[in-house]
């Protein structure tokens, strides 16, 4: 960092702003009103012009966009849509209506933009103050060209991060804030803009979810609480099994293939890779047809008498094995099919890791007299766990949100058998996220979907923190430098 006359202590952004504003001379203080003033005074003309232009754009934005929407964000609109058909012009004449959705969206955008602008403004003040100090001390004031050069040097990080961060703000942060806000409104099928308005309901959605976990089935929302618990339970169980079966399966497979006495290693690896190289959505849709009620697998099963056997044992009550239509069967099937999809992938990763086990560890172990089994359990496995530990955590969290597998395998095919869950539009094999998708897409129940989304997030945070705590102290970034 270039010399700062107030000393080398790393002060926070806000306190630097405070210092700049209060200690700065009149020009710095006035820069709050006229943003280019500080620059002009210190001779940075180009930056001054840029700052002033920026201010003009800001004023326009404020008046034309931000204020109209923010003023209505409290009520989210008052005038409902009404239209009258005019046969002469052959068009509908529409009143000047309020669109709740757009009001909220634009308000979120405005607030974000205003925060960003405020940050820029505070930076301008800080810079003006710095210029004042530098000038007083007789230090060199950068010309515009030199400032630009700095953007590619000491401030390169800003240049590098600008576009990606902008993308993240537009495509992740703003939509997220918007959808979190929706969880506190009553935006659903009966309140759909542009023809209907929706409004704030506070914590009502959350309360209704938890208040009725006991479930008395008398209204639609009470079924939500009941279903939520069950879907959450299955989501966690699924994530657990999916992650760990794949993990151990991949490791074991990789060990088998990498065993030094195995021939044709490359062949085995390639064969397994082919199984996963076909895009997931093709294979999953294929599997749905493969295991359907009237399908190849069922035909084979009945031909070899398996179906008959299961019927005699009382395991199935139908003439086919209901792989994909009966919850008790479908749940294991999903885990199995996921195993089929995931193991080759894990096998590759495990191979990469196994190839990296430092050989000298084995050497010294052998010298110390350890046999193969001991080497395996005391060196190989701990090493593998250590390196892939973080992967396990991310994999678990990713599986909580593993939409593709569940949706492609069961959508439109698996019907819920539990009446209360069906009332809440959930099925016994739904993950929280597939339930969320169905609520959004098929039933336009955006508010409950948002509530569920937020709860999924909380669940994920919980597990992430758990994992962070566990791995605290292990594997810092700097280890390899």
């Amino acid at each position, binding site marked *: 960092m270039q010399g700062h006359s107030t000393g080398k202590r790393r002060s926070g952004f806000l306190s630097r702003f405070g210092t700049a504003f209060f200690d700065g001379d009149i020009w710095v203080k006035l820069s709050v009103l006229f943003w280019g003033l500080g620059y002009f005074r210190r001779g940075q003309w180009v930056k001054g012009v840029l700052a002033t232009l920026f201010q003009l754009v800001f004023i326009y934005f404020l008046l034309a966009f931000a204020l109209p929407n923010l003023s209505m964000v409290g009520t989210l609109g008052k005038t409902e849509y009404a239209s009258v058909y005019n046969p002469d012009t052959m068009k509908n004449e529409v009143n000047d209506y309020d669109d709740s959705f757009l009001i909220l969206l634009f308000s979120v955008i405005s607030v974000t933009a205003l925060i960003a602008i405020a940050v820029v403004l505070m930076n301008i003040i800080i810079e003006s103050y710095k210029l004042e100090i530098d000038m007083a001390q007789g230090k060199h004031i950068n010309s515009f060209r030199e400032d630009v050069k700095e953007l590619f040097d000491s401030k390169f990080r800003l240049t590098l991060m600008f576009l*990606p961060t902008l*993308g993240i703000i537009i495509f*992740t942060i703003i939509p997220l804030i918007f959808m979190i806000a929706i969880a506190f409104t009553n935006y659903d099928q009966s309140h759909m803009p542009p023809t209907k308005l929706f409004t704030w309901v506070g914590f009502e959605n959350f309360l209704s979810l938890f208040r009725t976990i006991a479930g008395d089935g008398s209204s639609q929302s009470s079924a939500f609480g009941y279903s939520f618990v069950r879907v959450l339970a299955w989501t966690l169980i699924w994530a657990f099994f999916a992650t760990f079966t794949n993990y151990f399966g991949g490791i074991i497979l990789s060990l088998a293939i990498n065993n030094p006495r195995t021939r044709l290693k490359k062949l085995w690896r390639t064969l397994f890779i082919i199984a996963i190289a076909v*895009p997931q959505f093709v294979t999953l849709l294929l599997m749905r047809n493969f295991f359907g009620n009237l399908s*190849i697998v069922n*035909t084979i099963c009945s031909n070899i008498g398996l179906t008959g056997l299961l019927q005699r044992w009382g395991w199935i009550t139908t003439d086919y094995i209901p792989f994909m239509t009966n919850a008790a069967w479908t749940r294991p099937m999903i885990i199995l099919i996921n195993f089929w999809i995931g193991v080759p992938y894990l096998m590759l990763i495990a191979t990469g890791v196994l190839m990296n086990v430092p050989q000298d560890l084995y050497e010294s172990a052998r010298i110390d007299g350890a046999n193969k089994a001991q080497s395996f359990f005391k060196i190989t496995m701990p090493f593998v766990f250590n390196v892939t530990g973080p992967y396990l955590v991310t994999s678990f969290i990713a599986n909580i949100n593993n*939409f593709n597998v569940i949706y492609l395998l069961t959508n439109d095919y698996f019907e819920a058998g539990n009446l209360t869950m069906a009332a809440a539009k959930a099925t016994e094999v739904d993950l929280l996220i597939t339930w*969320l998708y169905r609520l959004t897409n098929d039933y336009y129940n955006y508010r409950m979907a948002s509530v569920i989304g937020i709860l999924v997030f909380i669940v994920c945070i919980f597990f992430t923190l758990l994992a962070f705590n566990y791995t605290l102290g292990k594997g810092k970034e700097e280890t*390899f430098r």
Partner: protein
Amino acid sequence: MSRTSQNVTPKREKKPMTIQQKIALRKVPGDIVRHLILAALAFIWLIPIIWLLFTSFSADPGRNVLRFFPIEYSLNNYQQLLFNPGTVVNFPAWFKNTFIVAVFTCLISSMFVLMIAYTMSCMRFRGRRALMNFGVILGLFPGFLTMIAIYYTLKLMGLTNTHFGLILVYSGASGLGYLIAKGFFDTVPESMLQAARIDGASEATIFWKIILPMSRPIIVYTVISSFLTPWMDFVFANIIIKERIPQYYTVAMGLYRMLDKSSVNIYFAQFCAGGVIVAIPISILFVIMQKFYVESVAGGSVKG
């Protein structure tokens, strides 16, 4: 461990077996069993793929439930798919669309990812840790939550129903996926960076002229994985491409639609054919990507 018994020189008289030879022989049955198991597993793993392949050559356009192998074979499905674009199925158009979307997504995504990964990894600045943690938190929200909001944001920009909008959706927030690339950049020795700075190189020069050229494995990995994303996604494509004109679909959307209830009996075999065609470039890319991933993860410290 891998040094199996060596019969160093052929001797005339029968030598008693060395311990190593004895151990090796004892292992042979284990080897055979292991190979058999591997073969069986590989076979099981490939059964659905084989079914896919064979069904794609089936003369019967619908599903085949009584027999594993089709009754009649024909190239009809491929011909229909590739040469007879219709109003419901238009594979060449889908392929072209997805390809274009994928190329641009890959360009923008890779740039974003590498830019952020490098910044987070090789530069030290105030608030870096905070930003990284914030990024992790953002990543924990389910992506679908934001579907409808993104749709309307795009609408604000007038970009719905366009492929450009789709490209933006896929690549806009890609910077969040920087972790793997960052892991790679973490292995760049600090000394190299310092040396370059002492030599007077600006940060920009270091990035473009020094770091990038030697980061081939991770660049290839990033490029390929971002290229593959648009081929596999149908959820977001469904939302953004609102006009139900098949010419605009991506491959994922098109194939998915072929299997909805009303068309499955007419299009199943073609679906399989489409799946096979799509699988070929994707699997090749996937294999390449894996190679580079392993190289970058296991590469250890980067040699300058």
